[in-house]
């Protein structure tokens, strides 16, 4: 028996999850197919976590429209989904005389695009906003905000699930066959049929399109590396601090971005790769990231780095190409019912709420109308963060559930109850990754050295998890090669 859906969304990134969730507002059967063990494991979780105001993107493009729309929707969107969102603002900072001009250019683009409250500030005002940052003039964007991209994607997927979507993790789409009444999808985890397919496969969106004979697209993977600094350095900046990007490189330049969890990220670099799956860090870039950030913020030291990682942009233009590439977002003319979302790099995170609206409008048009799902509940409760509560709130929580009194992750002060809640997620995603992105355990300065054994103990206690099922992020990433019998 093959499960039939009205719409199948391929790819559990922020865009795919936002679309799946948006579609559950209607009377539709929706599937979300994700190849990894959880959502947000690709580009969506590996970026600066910024809701951009929209002054980098060329005027008149889909990127610009969706950026502005998405940015305006984002505060309410995050609130509804219980996701941390902080309007910390951002400055783009000129350090040299010849960089001043760029600020005015950006401001001009931004205003044409519809950005609000942009202004140029002088050295004195930079000092007031960011006392530790050196700069002679800056563009200040007070509406630029930071959000938790993992929690946003997770909340979207979990909300979609609660509203009836079928979220299939560990499901790699291998073949898509065009049928009279839709599509047959073959995966490593069952086969499905669906009236409409939405290709939101990010770095693999060209390959998914090619499965139905659409060979018009090629993704050029472009890696960006980051460092994460210890939380004890968080107060060195207030908002995001960007440079005037070096002319020869694409991208926004290596910037300093605070996270909603209280770290600072340094990065990203930009380097084209032959394959879209090399999430590595290189010594050259790691060194460069630090040195360039250090120029901005001399109060940081290499000792402050707690972790490095990388993300990959799904670009539609190859290295060296000057032609700007817009998002591809359309129903294929060759293959009706097949909606392609290709080249959704930055500002894809910011644009996600707006993209979801547009795609659901496309689905409505294809189906000739959609009936509303009266039972749709848009709200996801925000996660309780014991560490951030007042003494009185902490005390009340422990009295309610003693598991709030047992600290599991000492670096981030995450309690046993928070770990249990993370494990009890509706997607049944139970890797270390799934726990850590939901409750923040393992992400502190000891990087899970002390709390991973305790998390595994809780997994065994609650789910009797087998040794072979304990992994970092899905099959193949097992933590252990065996266990001795007779040990507690």
């Amino acid at each position, binding site marked *: 028996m093959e499960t039939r859906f009205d719409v199948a969304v391929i790819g559990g990134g922020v865009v795919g999850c936002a679309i799946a969730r948006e579609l559950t507002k209607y009377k539709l059967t929706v599937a979300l197919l994700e190849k990894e063990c959880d959502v947000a494991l690709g580009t969506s979780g590996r970026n600066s976590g910024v809701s951009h105001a929209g002054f980098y993107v060329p005027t008149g493009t889909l990127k610009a429209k969706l950026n502005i729309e998405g940015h305006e929707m984002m505060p309410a969107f995050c609130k509804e989904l219980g996701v941390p969102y902080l309007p910390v603002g951002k400055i783009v900072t000129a350090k040299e005389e010849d960089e001043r001009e760029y600020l005015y250019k950006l401001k001009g683009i931004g205003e044409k695009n519809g950005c609000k409250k942009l202004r140029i500030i002088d050295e004195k005002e930079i000092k007031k906003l960011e006392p530790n940052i050196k700069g002679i003039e800056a563009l200040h964007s007070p509406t630029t905000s930071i959000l938790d991209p993992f929690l946003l994607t997770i909340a979207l997927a979990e909300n979609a699930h609660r509203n009836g979507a079928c979220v299939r993790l560990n499901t790699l789409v291998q073949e898509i066959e065009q049928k009279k009444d839709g599509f047959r999808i073959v995966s490593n985890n069952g086969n499905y049929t669906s009236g409409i397919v939405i290709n939101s496969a990010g770095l693999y969106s060209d390959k998914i399109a090619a499965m139905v004979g659409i060979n018009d697209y090629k993704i050029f993977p472009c890696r960006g590396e980051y460092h994460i600094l210890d939380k004890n350095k968080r107060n060195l900046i207030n908002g995001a601090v960007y440079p005037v990007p070096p002319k020869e490189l694409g991208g926004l330049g290596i910037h300093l971005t605070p996270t909603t969890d209280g770290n600072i990220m340094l990065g990203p670099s930009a380097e084209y790769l032959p394959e879209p799956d090399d999430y590595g860090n290189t010594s050259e870039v790691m060194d460069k990231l630090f040195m360039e950030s250090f120029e901005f913020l001399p109060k940081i030291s290499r000792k402050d780095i*707690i972790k490095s990682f990388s993300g990959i942009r799904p670009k539609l233009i190859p290295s060296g190409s000057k032609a700007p590439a817009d998002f591809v977002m359309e129903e294929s003319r060759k293959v009706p019912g097949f909606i392609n979302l290709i080249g959704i790099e930055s500002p894809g995170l910011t644009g996600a709420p707006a993209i979801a609206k547009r795609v659901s409008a496309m689905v409505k048009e294809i189906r000739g109308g959609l009936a509303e799902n009266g039972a749709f509940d848009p709200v996801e409760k925000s996660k309780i963060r014991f560490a951030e509560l007042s003494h009185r709130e902490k005390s009340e929580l422990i009295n309610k559930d003693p598991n709030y*009194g047992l*600290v599991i992750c000492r670096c981030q002060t995450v309690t046993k109850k928070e770990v249990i809640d993370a494990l009890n997620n509706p997607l049944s995603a139970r890797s270390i990754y799934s726990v850590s992105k939901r409750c923040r355990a393992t992400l502190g300065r000891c*990087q899970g050295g002390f709390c991973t054994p305790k998390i595994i103990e809780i997994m065994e206690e609650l789910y009797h998890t087998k040794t072979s099922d304990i992994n970092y992020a899905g099959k193949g990433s097992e933590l252990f090669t065996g266990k001795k019998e007779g040990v*507690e």
Partner: protein
Amino acid sequence: MITKTVDVAIVGGGPAGLSAAISAKKNGAGNVLIIERGENLGGILNQCIHEGFGIETFGEALSGPEYMQRFIDQVEENKIPYLLNSMVLEITRERKLLVASREGLIEINAKAVVLCMGCRERTRGQICTPGTRPAGVYTAGAAQNFINLKGYRIGEKVVILGSGDIGLIMARRLTVEGAKVLAVVELMPYSSGLPRNMVQCLHDYDIPLYLSHTVTEIHGKKRVEAVTLAQVDERFKPIPGTEKKIDCDTLLLSVGLIPENELTRNAGIAVDEITGGAIIDERMQTSIPGIFACGNVLHVHDVVDYVSMEGDKAGKDAAEYSLGKAKMEGAIRVKPGPGVRYVLPQLLSGEEDVLLSMRVISPARNVKISLIDKGRAAKTIMKPRVNPAEMIQIKVKKGELAGCKEITVTLQNGK
């Protein structure tokens, strides 16, 4: 919220904390309380099942749990109360502690506090090892926990980066458990572990040691598949052309320990950037009166016996403070000079016998260690050999530093 008042609050129930608690009690503190975040007293020694602890203190080589049991027994005999599964979230200048426990949030008002939180391991992130981020990269202590306390096999073919003591102990442990340790890789031209561990853990098991080498890349998408090693030059930069790829499924890191001083910093206590621990005077007192520190939270020790001895001293000093006995202000500053990485305590009175603890920067033979004040050596001792892995202690007698204002401890060729 539950509130308590104690004379001496001990933050941490490992070797330093238990010694401090027992000593505080013996020295007259009426009401001592140990606050331990783990589910047992004993701290990290519970997972150190190898032998070699207690040679200085008891004259025998005990396992970690055996060593700790002797102190736990004394805690019980002295009826010193302790909280388990209880985490100190905050310490204030006024010595008010906020503790999370299953019984509730507890506020403890203490006349004196002894910080005994120990240390954590430096991670891959902090040493910026390039490559992918697969499963199978463990810090040595985390691996020790998994193997010794839970019975897990963490991998079959292992490379260990860092020849610190935990790395060496784990090389032997993994071999005994049937895994193959393919290499121990050390950045420095010498091992940073104790000589006895070099012999008993590597040499006896024919495990190759690569000195002046480092791991330049981790390979593998989901689980470690290989690591690349390279030789390093005198500035610790990898030398091109010396790379060697080793197929393995596990990389263990034993690349240093960091005193865990977040509570300390948040309390506003001055921290020494070199030791990573609080700045203390000869009474083990930090920059906040009534708050003391000892053990690995103060500076990373080589041998646990010295941790216990330091705890004993800090416990006594804290008890005396809680009893309102005469406090002494440090007047003589102590600084590391050439060849010396650090010296503790940083402040002395010169009016009491005191034990200085120090570490050198690099190995040397036949050296002279001098305590120099205004160009004059107030005291000099000779050492046939010194090693950064080994802590050096110098006894300074009352009066030896009479008239000194600032002591610089220097290392010189003794010949």
